[in-house]
């Protein structure tokens, strides 16, 4: 068989391989878990404060602190805390407490062992004096680092729901300097919280979670006056995610994190 013939065969085989492997229908379309249900996504990958997706208004209403970006779970993340920023966005259509919903976010604990004495660290909250819901680390006791305090979903000031604290165990010192996934959800008269892909813990109320119970017109992500952390992949969903979906988000995120580590030679 001469060289030209062999080359022709090789080109045909190559064509065949490319035809089979190139441009599958959804190539490059690595959509997040439950993407159809996402009403708000801020992943900071473009180092922008504009969210990737927003069913409601996208422009932040207010920006507190300084905008700094760092490597995230996938792409970039926002630095939050004393050296960082808190962002406030409009609630209508982005988050709806009259229907079930979920918020998921990733955060990186930046040397939290040194955070003795620091107050609560808030990740997400609707800061309204007539009904507050937020996920945060406990404020007390301050003689231990935030790593050793519980992570809580807190409801306050609502005329409809009682002041509530739904707690997850503390991360512990082993949770320092790593990415964590925090997910909270609401559906009917229940709220839920999950950490690092675990099954939801839940709490029942007598009354429904609703916009009447939580009437805020905005929500905030990040913090500008607490323990420093990186915030990434903040998503709001228009339904309650299942335990399996939360686990999938966790596993996918960790795949990205491990990929990044390998790329950095860690």
């Amino acid at each position, binding site marked *: *068989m001469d060289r030209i*013939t062999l080359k022709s*065969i090789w080109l*045909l*085989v190559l*064509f*065949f391989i*490319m*035809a*089979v492997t*190139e*441009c*599958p*229908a959804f*190539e*490059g*379309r690595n*959509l997040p878990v*439950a*993407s*159809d*249900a*996402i*009403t*708000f*996504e801020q992943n900071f990958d*473009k180092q922008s404060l*504009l969210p*990737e*997706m927003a*069913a409601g208004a*996208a422009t932040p209403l207010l920006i507190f602190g300084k905008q700094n970006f760092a490597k995230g779970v996938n792409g970039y993340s926002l630095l939050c805390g004393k050296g960082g920023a808190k962002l406030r966005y409009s609630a209508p259509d982005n988050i709806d407490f009259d*229907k*079930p919903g979920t918020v998921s976010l990733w955060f990186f604990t930046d040397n939290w062992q040194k955070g*003795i004495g620091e107050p609560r660290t808030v990740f997400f909250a609707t800061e309204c004096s007539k009904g507050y819901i937020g996920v945060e680390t406990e404020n007390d006791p301050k*003689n*231990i*680092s935030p790593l*050793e305090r519980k992570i809580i979903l807190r409801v306050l000031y609502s005329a409809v729901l*009682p002041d509530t*604290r*739904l*707690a*997850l*165990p503390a991360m512990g*010192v*082993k949770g320092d300097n790593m990415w964590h996934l925090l997910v909270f959800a609401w*559906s009917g008269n229940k709220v839920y919280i999950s950490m690092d892909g675990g*099954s*939801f*813990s*839940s*709490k*029942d109320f*007598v*009354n429904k979670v609703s916009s009447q119970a939580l009437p805020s017109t905005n929500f905030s992500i990040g913090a500008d006056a607490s323990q420093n952390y990186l915030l990434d992949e903040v998503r709001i969903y*228009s*339904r*309650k995610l*299942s335990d399996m979906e939360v686990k999938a988000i966790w596993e996918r995120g960790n795949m990205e994190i491990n990929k990044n580590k390998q790329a950095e030679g860690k």
Partner: protein
Amino acid sequence: MNIILKYILVTVCGMSASLTYGADAALPSYIRTPQMAKPPVIDGKIQEGEWRTASESFGTLQLGTNYLTGRDAVFFIGYDAKNLYFACKSELPPEGMKLLSRVRERNGKVYADDAVELIIMPPHKEYVCQFISNSLGTFFAKKYPVIRGSVCTAEQKEWEPKAVTASTLKDGNWEIEVMIPLEDLGIKELPFDKEWRLQMTRDWRQPAEQTPWNKSGNFCNPDSMGIMVMDKDVPAAHFKGLGKDYRKGIFDIGFSAFNSTGTASSVECDVSIVSDGPPRALNTKEQIAAGQSKEFNLKYSEKAAITSDLSATIKDAMSGKLLLRRNLKFGSGKVTSWDNPAAQENTEMEFAYYPSYKLIKCRVDASSAGNEIVRVSFHVKDSNGKIIGEAIAGKKIKNDYRAEWELPELAENTYKAVCEIALKNGGNKIYEKEFVVKHFPWEHNQIGMEKIIVPPFKPLKTDKDKREVSALMTGYGIKGLFWDRIYSQGENILDSPIRLMINGKDSLQEKSFEFTSVEEHAVNVRASVSGSGLEIKSQHEYDYDGMCKVTLDIIPDGKVAIDNAWIEIPLKKSAARLMHTMHNTMKNHPADFIPEGNGVVWDSRMGYKSDEIRGNFWPYFWLGDVYKGFCWFTASDKDWSLDYDQAAIQIIRKDDSVILKINIVNKPCVWEKPFKYVMGFQPTPVKPRMAGWRHVAERVKFKNEGSVAMALLAGTCVWGADGAYDPWPAGKDYSMTRKLAKPERKQSAKDTSDVAPFIEKHFPGVSKTRYDFVKRHLLRGREWSTFCDFLVPYLNPTASEMYWDEYNVYMDEWWYGNYRDNTSDDYNTEPCRSYQDMLLYYTRELVRNGMDGLYYDNIRDRTSYDTTTGPAYELPDGKIQPYFTIFSVRELLKRTYTMLYVEGKTLLDNRPLLITHMTNTNIVPCMSFSTISLDLEAKFGPADFQDRFSEGWLLSTTIGTQTGCAPEVLVQVTGNEKEFVTRTFLAVTLAYDLPIVLDAGGLTPTFKKTWELIRDFGYGSTEVSVYPCWDSNSPLKILTSDTRGVLYLNPQKHEAIIVVSDFGKGGKAIVDISGLGFTPKTASDLETGKSIEVNGVKVELELRKHDFKILILKESE
């Protein structure tokens, strides 16, 4: 060799083609389209006639197939000299759903939204351009170089077309129009008669489905695209669709052509439909005048669910040029339609596993599957997938399917509770939840269940003739279902009998009565009454502390109309000055004087309660005075019939009685099936307070003889625990606890070298802060042990932790939810039987390893929503009315009290050392089995103590006389006037004789100094009598209304200390000392030494508001 080569080539080409086009190969979609004379207005409105000179093509295909999708879209594509025009009209989601339009940044994840795509390779074949837009006008644009006839999307180039898009959402459709300048496609001159490769796609969401115009499995590959040719000399061809009712089997397959050429033209339209049904065809040739349009329709009806193959071509008859080619399938088979992601709510299964009951219950809300459900079943399987027992059919209740069934004894393993839903379409949904089974050494123990009588209680006495049962300080005289005599320290405190009134009458006649068992620790009585269509059987279970549990079996004879029913408890007015009732919110319960007046003076619509309970049912009431009283309690209002607008419970003052009226029916109902009421009753005082209790002090050893120093070891690290609520030390290593045992204390306080190794072993790798914390607490215990006589570890029997192995197995049995909530906290564990077993097992270990008693935090009622573990029940609206955990809290305390006694862990007069924190929840049947009760952990801050707690609160719950508990109070003072606030604290606690104080911070040295003065005088000794302000027998009389006084009298020495406290606005306080039994010669202020004038038998003092003065009076100099 050549044959082999040919074979290889043919095979490879064939495989390529088949992979590109799938096993069912068809010719690519084709359009040849004229130039648009008038460009469309890009306003998002596809107007009539606006796009008639463009090509129109109905239908999008399921990916990789020729099969039509379940959602409709039609594409338009045209051009003029400068621009390419593209439009899409696609159906909107049904009502209740929105088009997803969230991405707002160019080149963001536009494909995550409902979007349209245009993928196009111009004839120059240099690159493929991809343009994706959502309805907001946000677009994604990239281009991919073509290499050897194909592309690699990883090799993408920036592409910034000056595209314009517009969208409208109207009439059930999303219409989008796009304009892209041809120069942005690399076109300078219109390339007539040259092939473009074209793909038009509708990216649907909800659910996600990418549906192209041309069959494709590999996007962006030119060979998987359709073909477009620009041609100025041909009519525009349109494939309009299958007709508006095609999904109902009524087809009106429409094509048309518009002649924009300027001269007459002729068009051939050939359409064939091939299926299992009759073949359909349309073959026609039509003349079309210039500027005119012609329509071609193939109409037929086909209701059978069969697959049809449509092949359509439209040709220009004069030139023979192909204007349009389309091949697609439609008909039977699964198509994707809109799926509301919000409808996926509530499709998770809930379950709860009860190891002690060997029971599991499951529930699934299948409302989203609606009428599609054929069958729901549940089962349990082990880790090997083996089903345990049988599958159980789910029962439909409202929107749920539920099942509850017994399980055999399960071996240690991980199991799954499984729900299978069979659907009408043949599919099924499966939900699984995992649970763990593990066995523990403490399960099913009998610790604390010995049938013994623990001091100071004495055996019950029974007089069968008089139908009387007597406990230590109280007793009952039985009549009918209840009693006509309730004895409190020998006095009958009932004004009239306790009765069950039905329809306003007490007309049921006694049928039987019997003492069924009489033992020293328990007496049982059965009785029955009947009349008016009812038989009621009562069972009285008298416990040796004087509590009586009454179970009423109501047995209607057919349907019995009940307009009203209530239990009437009429106490003598003289026995009912105070009230205490409880809901499930600590620190807010009414504990005060019964309001003045006659008639209804209080009802259960008053008072703060949380909205966890529907209506105004309260589970516990006590009415009484300092040394007498009576309480009623129950767990639930199940089987009551209540009008929530009316009072469930009332306190009525009438003539010489104060009546507690418990309205079990205030909304007319019908009793037709048997049911039970279970209630508890208990007169007070239950027992006397501990002899010598005044000697006890918290973490202080006073100098006076007999002083008893007790230390609450809080936090748990003090005795070696890790978690705040672990009832065991870290690693279940009791070495630190043993070091606090009496024989070890002296030595272990000196030699603490074992502390660091313990921390290193059981707290490895902790932060320095944590290490220091643990060490500090362990050493604190050693320090307290040097001067404290009793060390009492802190425990919280309403807490559990997710990291306990025990909790992972028992969480559904212990947690207050109705199904698994997968969480824990400090307050919402019910101390049910299995929890008691666990706690008693470990607390016994603690006391066997050195502890002198136990402290229980949070002794209060709490609500539980679990319909399996107690009488919680479902209301008509599906909400659960919870039950109160009073009975299990009582059982926990009784078992603990008994265990401590059996283990010899007693204090002073041989009663068990059990301290219970009950702030504002002084539940008599629970505190009956406590020795020291802790109150006042509320209203911390800078306020004066007179303003924090009412005197009614102090009398009804704090002083401990009703329950026979030595009173302990918790205090915290903040602010910048701590000295004065400490004085107000002393003013209150001295007046009310509350010497045992747990200081949570803020008390100044004045506190200890003052008590030293009083104790040096002999407080607590047998020589000194103490008369608090509430003691009606006190020789001391206070003549000013807002003044309170406590007297410490040494009648032998003719000396007295009087503490006079202001509870008003300050001013003059006048005290009558004529009853002291001696005439004082000297009187002085014990704090200042200043002399005080005694005016005959009166002493007058000036007091600051809320302050106090201590006077010492002596007969001799």
